[in-house]
């Protein structure tokens, strides 16, 4: 769906998310050095691409995602989303965020949860419910419009959270370990559905995960990070053919990429210790 936007002066191939030399230092107690959560991070995410951030706990991948969403401010460096600062992009509802916790307010039925961002924007009821039903079809939740969140399984709740994040047609979908709390079978299934949604909507995705296999399966690029200080050590291009299937994981090319990612992660550990 095309809609007029306050288009920033950027060419069509400009990155949707551009992170330039970003550092974030959590202030220490009384003069101590403080924790360097991110150290001179550079990253650009091309329009329509799927990029994963991977690394051990404490490497700053979630922190980076929160900075892009204007939930945190960097100590140094700049970030743009669609050519503007994260705050402007957020206020223009250009950012969709899926957290590990589905965070569906329990007093709203599923459809009302999915259309929450549209309601906050002031879209009238008929229009937002039409859009909400369309989104619920997209994520495979048709028929559960009137259910309460607590009546749904964890996987279904996370589908609703994805539909909600997509409701305003954001330029970028930020996902912070969205499937981390799910069992392996549900997780595999949602991976495939996310790939299909990415294909269908063409939305740009920046995805945080602990699983190198999940990252390789879904992504165009896998960004490997190391902790203390949080740094990007390597960007692995994933040139596997699309659409990908769960069986893609049996291919030699897939397994080579996973091995490469694991080597990079282990090297990062060795350096950090």
């Amino acid at each position, binding site marked *: 769906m095309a809609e007029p936007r306050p288009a920033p002066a950027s060419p069509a191939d400009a990155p949707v998310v551009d992170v330039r030399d970003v550092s974030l230092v959590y202030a220490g107690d009384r003069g101590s050095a403080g924790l360097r959560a991110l150290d001179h991070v550079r990253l650009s995410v091309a329009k329509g691409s799927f990029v994963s951030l991977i690394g051990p706990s404490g490497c700053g991948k979630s922190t980076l995602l929160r900075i892009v*969403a*204007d*939930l945190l401010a960097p100590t140094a460096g700049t970030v743009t989303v669609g050519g503007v600062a994260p705050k402007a992009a*957020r*206020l*223009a*509802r250009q*950012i*969709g*965020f899926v*957290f590990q*916790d589905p*965070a569906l*307010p*329990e*007093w*709203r039925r599923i459809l009302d949860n999915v259309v*929450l*961002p549209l*309601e*906050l*924007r002031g879209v009238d009821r008929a229009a937002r419910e039409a859009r909400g039903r369309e989104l619920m079809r997209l994520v*495979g939740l048709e*028929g*559960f419009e009137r*259910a*309460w*969140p*607590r*009546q*749904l*399984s964890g*996987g*279904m709740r996370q589908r609703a959270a994805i539909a*909600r994040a997509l409701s*305003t047609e954001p330029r970028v979908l930020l996902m912070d370990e969205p499937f981390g709390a799910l069992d392996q079978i*549900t997780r595999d299934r949602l991976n495939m559905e996310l790939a299909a949604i990415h294909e269908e909507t063409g939305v740009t995705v920046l995805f945080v995960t602990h699983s190198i296999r999940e990252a390789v399966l879904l992504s165009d690029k896998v960004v490997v990070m190391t902790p203390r200080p949080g740094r990007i050590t390597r960007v692995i291009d994933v040139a596997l053919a699309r659409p990908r299937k769960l069986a893609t994981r049996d291919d030699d090319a897939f397994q080579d990429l996973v091995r490469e990612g694991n080597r990079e992660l282990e090297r990062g550990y060795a350096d950090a210790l």
Partner: protein
Amino acid sequence: MPSEPAAIARPPLARWFPLVWPPIVTFVVIVGLWQGAVSFFEIPVYVLPSPVRVWQAFWAAPTTLLGHAGITLFEAMSGFVLGSALGALLGTAFAYSPVLARGFMPYVIAANTIPVVAIAPIIIIWFGHGLASKIAVTTFLSFFPLALNMMKGLQSYDRVVMDVFHVAAATPAQRFFKMRLPSALPYVFVGLKINVTFSVIGAIVAEFVQADRGLGFVIMTTYRMLAMPRLWAAMIVSALIGILFFALIALIERLAIPWHASMREPQ
């Protein structure tokens, strides 16, 4: 789909029956034992009137007793509404201003511990002998539970849900009305249910101290005359208005927060 959600339709009468019969059986057994004990041990009426005597005392002048009950219920409900509303406002102010909360909270808690029998005479001196002083006592009692629960409720929102609202560019008013207030409602109902009990107690105690109407007045005068069956009747009516009032609030709660875990159908 992995699983259908459990139905949350209201159960038909047939499904209510298993919930309703145990308390009815308990009631019949207790009243039967009471009547039997009074007859068998020949307990004097001023010590323990039998259920039949209490029933007769009630029916001797049912409208008078219910009239007094109406006065007490009016005082209780008025103070309940006023005190809860004022408490909710103060609780909201506390939730939004930590300085205000720190400054006033110790005194609010201290005031909350004042026994109603100690404060009632003072309030009656201030507000006079009419209904106003009784309503003032119940207002005073209803104030603190709502102030505390409102503050706690408004602070107990889910941080990730707050992040969702932030990313969706919610205004401060939208955050309050669409997130913090709904999160606070289960706490608000805890406070309201406490206030139901407090406000009936407050009204009766205030009538005890000084009144010419109301159930507290009936209890006081029948006690002086040792008209024990009538005193028992007044006591039971006061319990009944408390139960009715409580049922009303519980019904409103069911309609207001059907989504809350406490509203699950009993297993």
